[in-house]
């Protein structure tokens, strides 16, 4: 007998998925199952737990190859619907970041800036089937003499379009408040003065990385729901912290693990890739992401049973402490309290405001569950696990 009372392999789970016998539940449903039946029984019964999250993920973008012109070109400056794309790659390859605004955006010169259109909007327009304008400029070489062109393109016209996000699915995040005496405009939304609102951004119980806090199943090659289509975990993301302060069930109580992901843009949906304008801050994109967690043993049943009230988040002041990097934390709360509508800090009741859509997170977990139940989505075995420490 092994270490666990229940032992399943991903290959066995995939066989069950193929024969339509796999038991798939969402991370919300798993909380109740483990509570009533215990971890071992739950692990025997459930094969896959689906998760989901949908929120602004600024470290996102797409790599495009826009194909050659005649004569050929080595583009050095590229605009997509007036949004600059990074062209310091091969001749007709660019990277478009979602936080990039149009080249002539007034930014915060008229404060707070509106940031009406940016890279995320271009990506959304493309997956929505809209035409975008590509403008290229080049200095000309012997092999690539063309000096530039302007062209309308739809997603299907790009030979290669890959959503390539260097940091998604943050495992926990700060709750932002404002101790100052004027309204501030942050990536955590509008924070009104003197603790009038507390903004948070996590799907809590449904968030992928709360359900596998030590990255026991999620790693290089894990197949995921990404932007309404299929994607893969390619490695850990930027700012990944493998050894955070942890609370119940190993869940970090500070911003911790992150994922780097990619997936074919063709096949994604504007319902799950939405261009955003964050007033006074900049452009971004809401990314819908869901990860299936295989219940290989009772330990994974234990981790996926995490509930909102067990997940701690720290409250941070964004008027002074965060921008000045003082490291000060005003207090802690949990996601059950955050979702209730108010939290209490130093005796003061504060309105809570979500920035990540729980409605969409639930939709994603349900969609992914449906795909797996129908046998349309098989699990992959992670080839290399991501760094994580107790």
């Amino acid at each position: 007998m092994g270490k666990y009372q229940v032992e399943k392999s991903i290959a066995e789970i995939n066989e069950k998925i193929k024969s339509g016998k796999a038991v798939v539940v969402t991370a919300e449903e798993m909380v109740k199952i483990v509570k009533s039946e215990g971890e071992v029984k739950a692990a025997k019964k459930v094969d896959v737990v689906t998760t989901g999250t949908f929120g602004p993920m600024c470290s996102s973008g797409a790599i495009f190859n826009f194909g050659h012109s005649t004569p050929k070109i080595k583009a050095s400056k590229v605009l997509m619907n007036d949004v600059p794309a990074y062209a310091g790659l091969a001749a007709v390859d660019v990277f478009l970041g979602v936080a990039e605004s149009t080249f002539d955006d007034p930014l915060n010169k008229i404060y707070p800036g509106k940031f009406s259109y940016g890279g995320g909007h271009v990506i959304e327009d493309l997956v929505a089937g809209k035409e975008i304008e590509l403008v290229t400029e080049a200095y000309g070489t012997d092999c690539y003499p063309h000096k530039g062109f302007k062209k309308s393109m739809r997603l299907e016209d790009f030979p290669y379009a890959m959503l390539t996000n260097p940091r998604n699915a943050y495992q926990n995040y700060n709750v932002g408040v404002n101790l100052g005496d004027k309204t501030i405009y942050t990536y955590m939304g509008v924070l009104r003065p003197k603790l009038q609102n507390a903004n948070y951004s996590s799907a809590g119980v449904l968030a992928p990385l709360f359900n596998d806090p030590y990255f026991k199943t999620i790693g290089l090659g894990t197949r995921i729901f990404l932007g309404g289509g299929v994607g893969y975990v390619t490695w850990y993301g930027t700012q990944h912290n493998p050894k955070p302060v942890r609370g119940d069930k190993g869940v970090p109580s500070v911003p911790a693990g992150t994922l780097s992901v990619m997936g074919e843009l063709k096949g994604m949906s504007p319902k799950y890739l939405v261009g955003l304008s964050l007033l006074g801050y900049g452009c971004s994109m809401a990314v819908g992401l869901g990860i299936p967690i295989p219940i290989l043993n009772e330990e994974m049943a234990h981790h996926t049973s995490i509930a909102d009230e067990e997940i701690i988040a720290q409250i941070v002041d964004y008027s002074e402490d965060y921008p000045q990097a003082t490291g000060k934390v005003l207090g802690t709360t949990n996601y059950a309290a955050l979702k209730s509508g108010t939290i209490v800090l130093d005796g003061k009741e504060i309105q809570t405001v979500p920035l990540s859509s729980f409605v969409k997170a639930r939709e994603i977990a349900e969609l992914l569950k449906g795909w797996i139940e129908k046998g349309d989505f098989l699990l992959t075995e992670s080839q290399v696990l991501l760094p994580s420490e107790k």
Partner: protein
Amino acid sequence: MKKKIVLHFSKAIWDKPIIYRLIKKFDLVVNIQKANVLPKQESFMVLELDGDNGVITKGLDFLIECGVRIDPIEQRIKRDEDRCTHCGACTAICPTGSLYIKDRSTMEVVFDSQLCSGCELCVPVCPPHAMEIHIY
């Protein structure tokens, strides 16, 4: 009952004391929530009327007789349901509580246009640009 409307005043009637007469004649409780009334310009006002249903109807007829064009507020303030992601960012700034999360289990963001004053604060704050306010 309460009724919220948007009044449009043409250049010809911008300077007439219409609201005064509305209050005096019909004894309605009138609450001006937003107004832009300027000399010889197309002007508007967001008004909440409180009173007996029949009296409100008569008051509205009076306004139309005075040459005021009336729109129900829900025609002028809309949420694009396809663009709204139910993130909740708008609930931080909505001063009248017309954008709020009613059911804490679904976490859906509700928009009640009858509570809206047309302040437009939500328009630039809504990250996916779902709020459309056309009061002018």
